[in-house]
């Protein structure tokens, strides 16, 4: 890392830390219904919105009703988006006359955006109309993020409240998250991104002449538009000349900003945040990483404020920072030394395959750990082309359950489930009563925490196993050998943890991945969310136990280190065998000259 990069990374974390407190306390005020500087503008809108939707803002819900409202809302969102994708050709704002999605792709895409995953088995520029991107996908980027935040706020209330079954009102929490937090930040962020060159328009695609015409081999197609193949099954090509190109346009900035801010990650274009129209400058890159980590980071402070001890929040943030910076350092180390197999050609420099030049290497690596430590899944480099150990870092970050900052809301609630487990295990080891934040940890909490943490892992391993036995799933791999396994493992890890990034060589638009992937996304999103709400319900009913000599302090450094260790151990126990067969095997083969 050169001194510029060191400075860039340091500056990044300083700015992030500076923003945690003001945004965190603002969010605490929002969710606790206190007055904020935006109240004069937003309160009337909020009231109008409740009246329109028939919501009583003062009504409280127990955990079952809260979960029911969340589930129903998500079901309605899914049906609407599925219908929109299937009817794309009939809807407005489609200047390129793009056709409807196939049913399997529409199913996968609709579930993907409703679950905050944004796994994309399609390319935006050639498959999604402006209407779909804006009235469909952008909307889901807001409300799926607000849903995740609502669930963690309900969990925090579970810790704070005593002897009640009430956790708040889902509609109110979801609405406030959108109106007070996501929309204002997106508005500012979008304008900033446009200033850097992110496009924002409704023009039809632009045809531009090439300075130098180029000839290329064009695949021949039959009358139906399917590619022709010769007797050996190879595609038939003809020589063609390109004199001009078509550059796609669209309302990109408004979607780009919420894609990062809401840790959604679904790119407007296929190349995602590597596309110059999504991420044109080093500064826009810096800002996009900042947006990814901003809300998940600040939520730890919100948590601290709401439980009445901000050190509890800082402790969790410390764990997140430690793991994030650790994984960044490894990635930076392996990527900067380049690909050893290319040394024979006399090439010097970092592993630049799948990376754009305008971003610094350290900046790119920071983006990749930020996007996989959270549930974002936007990419500014192609993860499939990272070195074997480099590619293992984002994969491992996803497999750890996305608790390293994590998705908006979902990251913190999973982290709190880990904290509950850490408290319980340490309680067993040192003979102290397992208590967290003044609530006794009992069977119900343990069950729900374990369900929260293990659902995604079990889903990943079982579905990857099934894929290895399915010919159509294996033939979708783009790279041979151990790397192919990594592609499949990454695909299910990404979907089950609602990340959305990919080892994108894998041809995911086949029924196998579209359908089983949809299942993975549903399980990975809703099983933990409902388990967390159930835990919140059980916690809220308990009485407060004041800390005594027998209580393990959970706001100090030793607990932070212990929690880090618990996260790493659970991850290693679950995934080490799978990782050894994928990236680790590939690395060993590479350094051993067995390729």
């Amino acid at each position, binding site marked *: 890392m050169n001194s510029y990069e060191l400075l860039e990374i340091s500056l990044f974390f300083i700015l992030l830390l500076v923003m945690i407190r003001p945004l965190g306390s603002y969010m605490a005020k929002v969710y606790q219904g206190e007055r904020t500087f935006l109240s004069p503008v937003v309160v009337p809108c909020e009231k109008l919105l409740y009246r329109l939707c028939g919501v009583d803002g003062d009504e409280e819900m127990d955990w079952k009703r809260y979960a029911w409202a969340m589930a129903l809302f998500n079901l309605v969102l899914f049906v609407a988006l599925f219908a929109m994708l299937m009817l794309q050709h009939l809807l407005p704002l489609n200047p390129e006359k793009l056709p409807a999605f196939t049913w399997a792709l529409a199913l996968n895409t609709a579930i993907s955006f409703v679950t905050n995953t944004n796994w994309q088995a399609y390319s935006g520029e050639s498959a999604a109309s402006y209407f779909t991107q804006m009235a469909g996908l952008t909307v889901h980027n*807001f409300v799926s993020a607000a849903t995740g935040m609502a669930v963690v706020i309900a969990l925090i209330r579970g810790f704070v409240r005593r002897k009640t079954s009430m956790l708040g009102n889902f509609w109110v929490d979801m609405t406030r998250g959108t109106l007070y937090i996501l929309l204002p930040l997106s508005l500012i962020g979008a304008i900033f991104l446009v200033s850097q060159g992110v496009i924002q328009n409704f023009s039809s695609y632009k045809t531009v002449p090439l300075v*130098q015409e*180029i000839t290329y081999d064009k695949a021949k197609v039959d009358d139906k538009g399917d590619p022709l193949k010769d007797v050996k099954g190879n595609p038939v090509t003809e020589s063609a000349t*390109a004199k001009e190109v078509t550059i796609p346009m669209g309302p990109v900035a408004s979607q780009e900003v919420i894609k990062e801010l809401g840790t959604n990650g679904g790119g407007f274009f296929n190349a995602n945040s590597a596309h110059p129209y999504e991420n044109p400058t080093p500064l826009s890159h810096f800002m996009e990483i900042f947006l990814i980590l901003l809300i998940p980071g600040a939520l730890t402070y919100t948590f601290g404020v709401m439980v009445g001890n901000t050190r509890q929040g800082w402790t969790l943030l410390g764990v997140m920072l430690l793991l994030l910076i650790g994984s960044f350092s490894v990635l930076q180390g392996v990527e900067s030394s380049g690909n050893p197999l290319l040394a024979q050609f006399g090439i010097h420099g970092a592993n630049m395959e799948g990376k754009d030049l305008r971003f610094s*290497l350290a900046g790119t690596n920071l983006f990749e750990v930020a996007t996989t430590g959270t549930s974002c899944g936007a990419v500014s480099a192609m993860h499939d082309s990272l070195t074997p150990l480099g590619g293992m870092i984002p994969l491992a970050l996803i497999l750890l359950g996305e608790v390293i900052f994590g998705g908006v809301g979902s990251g913190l609630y999973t982290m709190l489930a880990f904290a509950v487990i850490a408290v319980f295990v340490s309680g067993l080891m040192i003979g102290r009563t397992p208590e967290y934040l003044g609530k006794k940890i009992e069977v119900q909490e343990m069950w729900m925490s374990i369900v929260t943490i293990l659902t995604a892992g079990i889903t990943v391993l079982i579905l990857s196993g099934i894929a290895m036995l399915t010919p159509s799933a294996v033939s979708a791999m*783009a*790279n041979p050998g151990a790397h192919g396994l990594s592609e499949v493992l990454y695909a299910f890890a990404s979907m089950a943890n609602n990340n959305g990034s990919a080892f994108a060589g894998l041809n995911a638009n086949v029924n196998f991945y579209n359908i089983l992937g949809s299942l993975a996304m549903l399980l990975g999103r809703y099983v933990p969310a409902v388990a967390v709400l159930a835990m919140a319900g059980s916690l809220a009913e308990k009485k407060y136990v004041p800390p005594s000599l027998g209580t393990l302090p959970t706001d100090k450094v030793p607990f932070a280190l212990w929690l880090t260790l618990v996260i790493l151990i659970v991850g290693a126990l679950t995934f080490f065998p799978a990782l050894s067969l994928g990236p680790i095997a590939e690395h060993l083969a590479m350094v051993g000259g067995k390729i």
Partner: protein
Amino acid sequence: MKELRSAILMLIVFTVLCGGIYPTVVTGIASVLFPKQAGGSFITDTNNRVIGSSLIGQPFSEAKYFWPRPSATSGFSYNPLASGGSNSGPTNPDFIKTVGCRVKTLQDSGVTGSIPADLVLASASGLDPHVSPEAANVQIPRVAKARGMAEEVLTTLVAAHTEGRQLGLLGEPRVNVLALNLQLDLLK
């Protein structure tokens, strides 16, 4: 049933708000404050015709032009309708072979010595408009010969087209290949 009604109404309200009003407001503000960027950062010639975008790279293969990074977009390279990387794994034999061919093409064109990695490895977007200053410099002898220009003139031109780090800190120094080649054509 009450919850279902609220869910449907919420969907409608948020679709109007986040999917209609918000992007329209952003488009409106952007078109006033940053019309050029919002429209695609297009470059126009003296007749006001659009001849490219400063953000989207173009393919060049003739000796008289500086070559950009390899692009893995489908159809042809630098196809803006198919942005994306190669997704080649680091140990994929086909990938190693492809890189070997690219190195050979460069060496055949007169590049000697060690080759900067960015010139033979495909970008993530497939539309990367930039090469490193070093990758531009190794091409100077070829371009100079093809155009019958002095190498010093080209060295100065490349230096003039090298963008520094943004705010003196962020990113990497880089050369916009399309802008450089357009300038070359103006010089003849």
